[in-house]
Every structure is written in C-alpha cells, then in structure tokens.
C-alpha cells in the first residue's frame, strides 16, 4: 500500500492538474482573506461606534469574532445591537457590510473554499483513480503483478487524498498565520486551538469526497462517466440539500413566519400597560406599580415560552435534514467551532434573556441598585462538542467510512480488462 501511495503522490505531483488546482486554491484563499478581513473590519468599526459607554447597560453588543474571517457564519447577526429594558429586548437589524454590494454572490470565506472548492478538487483528483488506470491498460498489469486489490485501492485513495490535503494544509496555515498578524486580530490560544480543529475537520471532509470520487471510479469503466457522477453528487451535496433542507423543515414545522409580528403586537399591549404603570408610579402607589411590573414580566416570559420551543424545533429539524449532506454537516461544525454558528446565536440570545430576567427589578426601577454589566463568553470547545458538533463529526466520519467501504466493495468486483 505504501508503494502505491508513494507512486500516486510522485506521479501526480508533477502534473499540470496539481499545479493548476493548487494555484487556484492559492488565489481563492488570497481573495477570501482580503474580502473577509474587509468585512471583519467593517463589523469592528460598527462595534466600536455602538459599544456602550460608561454605565450604560441598556445596550448590549458583542465584538466581532476574528475567526469569522475564516468562517463568517452568523457573525453579522451576533454583532447586532440589543436594546434591553423592562419591556423586553429590541434587536437592531443587521448592519451593512462590504459584501452588501454583492449579495448576489456568496461571501468567499475559507469555509466556502473548503466546502465547495476543496470538495471539487478532491473529486477532480480521485474520479479517475481506478477507471483511469483501466483505460490506460495498466490496472490489469498492477493486479497481475501480485498487488492486493484492497491495498491498491487504499494506496490510491490516500495518495490522492494527500495530494489534495497537503497543499491545502500548507496554504491554510499560511493564511491563518497571515490573519493572526493583521491589525485588530488578536490570535491567542483560543484562535490556534480552533484553527487546528478546523484543519482536522477539513481533512475528514476531503477524505469524504476523495473516497466518493474513488467509489465512482470503481463503479464505472470510463473516467468521463465517473466525473459526471462525481459532479452530480457534488452539486447535490453542496447546493441542493442545504437549500431544500430549509424549505422542507419549514413546511414540516408549526412556526408560522407571522409569529414575530404577533409578538410585536403584543409588545405594544405591554407598552400600554407600561404607560399606565408610569402614571401609577407618579401618583406614588408603589405596590400597584410593583404588581403591574410583575405582570409585564410574566407577559414577556409567556411570549418567549410559547415561541422559543417552536423555534428550537424548527432549527433542529432544519439541521437534521441539512446533515444529509456532508457539506451541510461541515458548515454547522466549522461555524460552531469558530463560534459563529446557529448554536452560538441561540446561546447569546439565551444569555441576554437571562440577564434581563436577573436585572428586571433594576431595569424597571423597582430596585435602586445599579444594573450589572453584561458579560458573555463564547462557548468553549467542550460545550460545543457536548452539543451538536459531535454529531456533525460522527456524520462526516460515517460518510468517509461509508464511501471507503462502498469503494472497496465495488473494486473487489471490478473487471480490470
């Protein structure tokens, strides 16, 4: 197997295919860093402008995450301004970003390059692993020379995988080192441990698509047919499943989009109650005031208790459907590792809700003590992997082993003539 692996690497290392694809990856990564960093700087400027000053605890905003340069995810959503009061939480809409100019085309962050381009590269290197040898007439010679089929297959698979992953690894390390020395980016242990994890996860993802391409190569006799199947699955996994997952989940879920509008209209009712409260407060009847404030708090809690479980169910169903694709699982995994995923947004919202509940009396003026400062730490790796991230890792590993197993089964029955 090692001989075959070395042969594959050396043979393909000097090919036009290798140089072109490596050059393409390099160019795309460069563009990605430039665009994503510009986007990050703009969000940082937004944070610096809106950051609460002094003892103002009515506005909450968290700084942009430097890892959003690698996986933007929902970092723009996370960086919104939250205005809190006894009446509830008001969320400012998303601020502008450099790519508002070009909302037609996807933000080319590193996650996009890994998810789309690297997967394509892995397929382009592996689609002719077996069928190409057969077309050249060398497959029967290798097998006649006493080579075991399984060793041959694994040698070819890991050889082609190495050819894709190693250049990516080098370029990715150069990219993250460049990002770490850019102004306004603080790269401590938080940054490096997560970057390392993203690298490992990307390796598993490349293995998934390398084994997929190799599987098709073992299934058909012509390389062009293998390429066709590989590309079809690439389109299906990378574009179709994530898109359709959202729609299917919404049609299965019971969260109507107008729920938010109902919430807003109820808040206006709460507003009316609050004006009554102000009137009572000015008349000095503190007991009545306190009773009505508690009523307001209960009304808000009831709203959240009816809405949030439905929303959580919708998100879970969406994620479960999108995870049918390794690309979807990778998106969720990398954005969670980078603390820019859906889980992080929900955690932030929960933290703000708890903060408002804890400080309700102070916000409503029932207590004279000052409102405590809001503190938020992104989720640790332990809590991320205790949640859905572990499932995403398992899904990727399952896909990789599944395709390798399929490739082996197909190759054992493959006619080399």
């Amino acid at each position, binding site marked *: 197997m090692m001989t075959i692996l070395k042969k594959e690497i050396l043979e393909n290392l000097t090919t036009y*295919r290798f140089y*072109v*694809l490596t050059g*393409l990856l390099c160019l*795309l990564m460069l*563009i990605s860093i430039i*665009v994503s960093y*510009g986007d990050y700087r*703009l969000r940082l*400027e937004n944070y610096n*402008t809106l950051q609460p000053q002094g003892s103002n605890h009515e506005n909450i905003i968290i700084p942009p995450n430097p890892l959003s340069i690698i996986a*933007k*995810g*929902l970092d723009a*959503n996370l960086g919104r301004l939250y205005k809190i009061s006894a009446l509830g939480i008001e969320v400012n*809409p998303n601020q502008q970003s*450099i*790519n*508002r*100019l*070009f909302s*037609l*085309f*996807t933000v*080319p962050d590193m996650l996009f390059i890994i998810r789309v*381009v690297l997967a*394509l590269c892995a397929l*382009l290197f592996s689609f002719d692993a077996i069928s190409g040898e057969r077309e050249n007439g060398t497959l029967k010679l290798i097998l006649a020379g006493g080579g075991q089929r399984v060793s041959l297959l694994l040698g070819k698979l890991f050889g082609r995988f190495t050819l894709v992953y190693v250049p990516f690894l080098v370029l990715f390390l150069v990219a993250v080192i460049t990002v770490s020395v850019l102004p306004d980016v603080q790269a401590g242990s938080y940054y490096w441990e997560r970057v390392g994890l993203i690298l490992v996860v990307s390796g598993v993802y490349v293995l998934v698509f390398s084994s997929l391409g190799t599987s098709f190569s073992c299934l*058909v006799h012509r*390389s*062009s*047919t293998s*390429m*066709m*199947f590989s*590309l*079809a699955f690439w*389109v*299906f996994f990378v*574009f*179709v499943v994530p*898109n*359709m997952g*959202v*729609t299917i989940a*919404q049609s299965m879920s019971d*969260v109507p*989009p*107008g729920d*938010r*509008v109902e919430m807003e209209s109820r808040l206006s009712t709460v507003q009316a109650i609050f004006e009554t409260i102000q009137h009572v407060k000015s008349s000095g009847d503190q007991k009545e005031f306190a009773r009505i404030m508690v009523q307001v708090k209960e009304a808000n809690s009831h709203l959240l208790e009816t809405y949030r479980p439905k*929303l959580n169910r*919708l*998100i879970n169903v*969406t994620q479960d459907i*999108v995870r049918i694709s390794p690309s979807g699982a990778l998106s969720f995994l990398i954005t969670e590792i980078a603390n*820019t*995923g*859906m889980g992080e*947004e929900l955690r932030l919202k929960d933290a703000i809700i708890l903060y408002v509940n804890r400080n309700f009396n102070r916000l409503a003026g029932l207590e004279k003590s000052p409102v405590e400062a809001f503190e938020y730490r992104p989720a640790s790796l332990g809590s991320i992997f205790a949640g859905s991230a572990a499932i995403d890792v398992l899904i990727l590993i399952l896909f990789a082993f599944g395709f390798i197993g399929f490739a082996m089964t197909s190759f054992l029955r493959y006619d080399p003539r």
Partner: protein
Amino acid sequence: MMTIVKKELLDHLQSIQFAVLLCVTVVLFCGNGLIFSKRFNQQSTWYTRKVTEAVQNQSTVSQLLYVRPDPLLFISESGNHYRPSGYELKPRGALAPMPSEPRNYKMPDIPELDWAFIIKVLFSLFVVLLGYNSISGEKEQGTLRQILSQPMGRIRLLIAKHAAIVLTVAVPLIIGALMSLIIVGMSIPTVPGVSTISSLVLMIFLALIYLSIFAFLSLLISSLIRQSSLVLLTLLVVWVFFAVIVPNTSGIVAEQFSGVPSEYQEARQLGPMIQQQVWAKIEKIQEKASRGELTTEEQVKRACDRAFDEGQEDLIKHYDSYYNAMKQRVALARTISRLSPTALFQYASEGISETGTDREERFMRDAREYSRIYDEYILKKVGKLTGVSNFSFMGSFDVNGKTIMIRSPFPEEYRGDKSDFPRFVESRISVSDGIRSAMADGAGLIIWNLVLAVGAFSAIIRCDAR
C-alpha cells in the same frame, strides 16, 4: 453537416452523462419551484396584511410603503432577501428603509436555488463536460483525421459539434423549466400568464446564448490542447475564474476606486454637521432674542422653524449625495464584474425577471413620486409641511424678560376625513421594458460568443489532426 449534428446529438443523448444531468436538473428545478412558490405565498400573506394595516393607519406624520413580492423571483432571486421589505415615508420626502422580511432564524449563507444559479453553475459545468473532449477526444482515439479526410470542412465540423452540444443541454433545460413552471403555477395561479410565459421563453433563449459561450470555449481549448484531461482541467479553472473570482473581487476593486466612506464614518460626520447646520443657528437666535432683536414668541418660533428647515435641507442633500455615491460604487462593481459572462447572464436575467437593483430603483422612483403626492395632500389638509429628522432640539429663550421654551417642529396629524388619502401603488413594467433592461447584458453575451467563436474557428483550422 446535419449527419454530424445528428450523430453527436444521439451520442450525447444516449450517454450516462445526459441521464445523470437530466435527473439532477429535474430535482433542482422541482426544488426551485417548491422553494419559491412557498416563499412567495408567505411573502404575499405578509405583504397583504401589512398593506391592509397601512391603509387602516393612514397618517400625515408617516406612511409605510411596502415592496410587492415578485412572482418571478424563482427565475432570478438576485439578493432580494437582503433588500428592505419596505420604506417609511415622512413629510418632505424622507424615506427610511425597513428591515428585510422577517425570518424566524438565519442559516449561514447558501446561494439561492433560482434558475439563474442552476443555469450558471450546473448547466455551464455540464456544457464543459460535454465539450471538453469534442476535438481532443477524437484526436486521442484517432477518429479526427478520418472525419476530416471526408469532404467536409473543419468549420462545418466545429459548427456541427457546437450545435449538438447546445441542443443537448436545451433538452433538460426546457424539461426542467417546464416542471418548475408547473409547480410554481399550481401554487401561484397568476404566474402562467402571457407576460410571464414570454419572460420565461426569453430566459431560456438567454440561457442558451450563455451556454453557447461555454460550448465555444470548450471547443477552443479542446482544439488547442491534445490531452482531454488537461482540457477539462483548464476549462474548470476558467469556469471558476468566471463564476467565482471575477464577480467576488469586483466589489473590492470598486471599493478601492470609489473612495466612498463607510456608513459609520459617515454617521460620525453627522454630529459636527448637525452642530454647524442647526445648533449654531439656534444659538444665534438665542443671542438675538437676549439682545432684544426678536421681540415676540412668534418671531422666535418662526426663526427656529426656519433654521430647522434649512438644516433639514442641508442634511437631506448630504444623505442624497452619500446615497448616490453608494449607488455609483455598486454600479462600478457591476461594471467591473461584467468582464465575466456569468455576471452578464445574471444581470440580464434580473432584467427579464424584473428583480435586482433595477427593481429597487423603480420602487424608489415610485416612492418619490408618491412622496410628492403625499406632501401635496398634507399641505392641503394640514396647511403646512414639516419635515422629520433624527435630531430634535429644545431650548429656552429670553424674550422681553420672559423665558419661553421652544421645541423642534413635528408634523401634525390630520384628524379629519381621510377617505381621499392617496394610496401608494407600485408600477409594473412590461415584457418589452424587461427586454430593454436586459439588452445591454444580452449584447455582451453575444459579443463573448463571437469572440470565442472566432477563437475556436482559428484553433480548429490550425489544429493538427494526427
């Protein structure tokens, strides 16, 4: 030549590649139909409710104008979910955008599965796969010299191969388009109308022109390079360049050349501007009042209102010039991206489906026209037109030894009969208007076709068939 066309066409149609493409196309177009019809119905419900609320809450202080959902969004979504769902109109033409349509949650960015995306990604890739070994594959098999030894010119061979490729992709394209139209038509009965069908036919025609570019490109590269695998790789790199690199970098390039400050730098400039335009004037009025130059409360109020109005006008001019600068930056970015046929196709499809920045511009024109009518109505009913600004002032003035409080003016609500309140109606454009807006980009696609056709013809004439 027809023999070659028939032979190539049959070869392609009977290949596994075609079968796989057909399956993927059916899945994608059905998905497109399902996704967009559901979304359109949700948007329509929301829009109807909001418009009804706006009609029930007519006001001379502010009025909400909503963007009508577009039934042809399934053709080209063009970043619609980033655009405001409407605008708040205040007296004197102040338009403030509302947030985009409300969502329960937001997934990380995924390209929309509209026709434009399916054609520019999947179909262009498929054309590349069909055409990459058209010449080089024949050369490798040794059949090219046999074909050329027949009394048939090289140009005819090239035309025949090109026609076969385009006809092959036209089959799944038309099947997919019909399936998408059926699904959308079942959910949105207004869609299968004459104007919509015309737009769809135009879209398919445009798609074939776009795909023809990749067919010529494949034939060109296939004639130049001997090895089919190398041809495929080169074509894929060119495809990534056109579909990903050029459109995504044009925004950055435009950013560098335009020199427009960011929204936050602009917001920071507003403070000193308001200070200069409004507060300084208010301070001067206060000084005049304390010196006795203004003797009555009425005079002070009038002077303050005038200062506020002048400040408002200056601020509106400032906002307008910034808005125009942003628009020019977007226009520059789009112009740069037009180097890529993929971007040309995207913009042309926006023109045909009446979506994208043209639609936004048209809405703004309608909103400004309505704003004029709205202001006339306010003048007629209330008697005066007071602008609204994000800043306000309140100050005490000494007039003849008496202290009076003056506040910034605020529009007055008309409490009378509003049965003649003007209603906002968004204009619609005809199919011919859509064609006109897509014409320039369509011409760009034709130019690409001509350039690559000339290249392919030159390459095949010089190609060594041995």
